[in-house]
């Protein structure tokens, strides 16, 4: 297991290469970066988690990765290169459409209604196949049925259902079926288990893990839950206020977080064992878009280790060990 992990976190040729990405939102008081000058490589055949709270920019990053940031947001600068496919930011409309769903697909939150309420699930799968010029449409349906069986869904009933006839947990699994239907290489999971309770969550995580391994997918997991990160991902990127605070192999981050924010996040997890006082809440609240300071460290107001330099100097994201990056003025050693 450890060996597998080592391999996947090696900085070999990345599947996705994000450079200098800024995504801004236009508000009545100006233009604000939800994602700010972000550099990130997503290694092939691994599960990379992006963790962050509200306003961290994690969802914006996910949308940017499919070049689907919608008004009033827009990609201001940067490139998102997919291995062998090019920079998605420069794709024209038709190329972008083919790319989505065929090469990279998204699994949505259980609480989201991602199906057309007026059409049966099966008919919408056929729409998907037709949109991407699939010849053997029956194969798509057959595979969807197999996936449904694996996910403990009654296959025939599911495909003939309308959305309102499915429960939250079922919709979540149907969303996975849609994402996998066209055999994409890259899967983006947007809070896949939020709004599910623990039992459904563990089951969905199990399925994702299995299919990821079977198909050799490159998976990006967006979440706010450190537990999900620990269960599923090989590598984790901690985001705060549109910037990467820390980037490390998951187990190492949990074992020894370097950035004060990562430390605080892990310390804030209620635990089943150990003294209650071990866990502590972080003072303050996550920043809203327009509160993000232009200069200095964005985390300084909530940081227990704040220094004078944090007010003026913006900490660079620097590599402190192979595969570990931290953006903090503190001297840290892994």
């Amino acid at each position, binding site marked *: 297991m450890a060996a597998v992990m080592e391999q996947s976190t090696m900085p070999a040729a990345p599947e996705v290469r994000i450079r200098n990405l800024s995504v801004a939102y236009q508000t009545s008081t100006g233009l604000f970066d939800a994602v700010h000058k972000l550099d990130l490589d997503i290694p092939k055949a691994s599960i990379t988690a992006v963790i962050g709270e509200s306003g961290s920019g994690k969802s914006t990053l996910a949308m940017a990765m499919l070049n*689907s940031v919608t008004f009033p947001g827009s990609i201001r600068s940067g490139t998102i290169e997919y291995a062998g496919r090019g920079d998605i930011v420069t794709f024209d409309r038709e190329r972008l459409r*083919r790319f989505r769903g065929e090469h990279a*697909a998204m699994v949505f939150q259980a609480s989201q209604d*991602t*199906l057309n*309420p007026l059409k049966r699930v099966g008919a919408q799968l056929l729409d998907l196949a*037709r949109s991407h010029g699939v010849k053997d449409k029956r194969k798509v349906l057959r595979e969807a049925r197999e996936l449904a069986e694996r996910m403990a869904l009654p296959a025939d009933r599911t495909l003939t259902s309308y959305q*309102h006839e499915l429960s939250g947990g079922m919709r979540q699994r149907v969303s996975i079926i849609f994402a996998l239907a066209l055999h994409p290489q890259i899967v983006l999971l947007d809070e896949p288990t939020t709004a599910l309770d623990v039992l459904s969550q563990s089951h969905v995580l199990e399925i994702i893990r299995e299919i990821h391994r079977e198909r050799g997918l490159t998976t990006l997991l967006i979440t706010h839950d450190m537990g999900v990160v620990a269960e599923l991902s090989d590598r984790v990127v901690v985001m705060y206020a549109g910037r990467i605070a820390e980037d490390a192999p998951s187990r190492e981050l949990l074992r020894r977080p370097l950035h004060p924010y990562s430390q605080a996040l892990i310390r804030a997890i209620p635990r089943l064992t150990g003294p209650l006082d071990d866990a502590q809440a972080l003072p303050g609240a996550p920043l809203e878009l327009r509160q993000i300071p232009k200069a200095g460290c964005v985390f300084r107001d909530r940081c227990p280790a704040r220094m004078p330099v944090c007010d003026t100097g913006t900490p660079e994201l620097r590599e402190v060990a192979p595969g570990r990056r931290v953006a903090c003025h503190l001297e840290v050693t892994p």
Partner: protein
Amino acid sequence: MNYLKFLAKKLLGGLAMVYVVVTFTFFLIRLMPGNPVLARLTSLLQSGVPYQAAKQQVAAMYGFMPHGPLIVQYFDYLGQLLHLNLGLSIAYAGVSVTHILMSAAPWTIFMVLLGLFFSFILGVAAGVVAAVWRNSIIGQSSTFLATLLHGIPQFMLALAFLYLFTTEWRLFPFGAPYDAAIHPGFSPAFVGSVAYHAILPILAYAISGYGGWTLAMKSSVISVLGDEYILAAELRGLTRGIRIRYVARNAFLPLFTSLTLSLGFMFGGAIVIETIFDYPGLGYLLNNSIGAQDYPVMQGAFLIITAAVIVSNILADLLYSLIDPRIRRA
């Protein structure tokens, strides 16, 4: 099974509504200051008709006796209604109201439904355009036109049409449903004449409803465009054609609520449009019956207009239930 129940409920609701309206008009007319029935009786007596004959004449006219307990009159009236007997007209002495209404109703229903159809189809299409291309010139001018037309009262539109098309340019006739020189029948000449005479009123209906539909469809489309499943469809790479179909069908549904609300407006508008264009439908009849104090005709026209609205309402509800699986599937 459930669907049949749903149907039955709708129909019963409609019947109950008709009953309420019938009762309402009955008592309203009976409670009028200077009861028209008594007034008629008095005027007959004054003109020298013997009491018994006058009473019979009035009874024949209104379908009931002017004296006697109200409740008896009421059930008598209901009984007559069930036989589609609405009494006799006063203005067109001796002609049965049912007969008058039957010759007027087709014109109104024909024009209102056609007007509604055109305004609905055109408005919905323009609404999609206004929403999907809302940031371009086409979309914005569609919105502007709709807002403008929606803001102009129906009678003003009708007046403008009348002035422009009949007085200024003399393009269309007005004042009759067809050319008096042509014998009614299923001949091309007759149908052509009917269409020619109906164009202006239908246009007035259609244009006065158009703006409202465009604005309603536009806001519905914009709200659907913001729904998660449309974003999901885009992220799954569905083609633009399929996505527009998803949007249009979903945005279309809420319009049925407005459709039922607009039916009353459309049929009510018959009064305005038919009066302005001198078109002999129910609205024209209703308006004229006031001046002529022709209460049986007024009452009948009011009833039949309301009934038409109720029936169209039920049809719209049924249509809706056929399109929306959330209602269709038990």
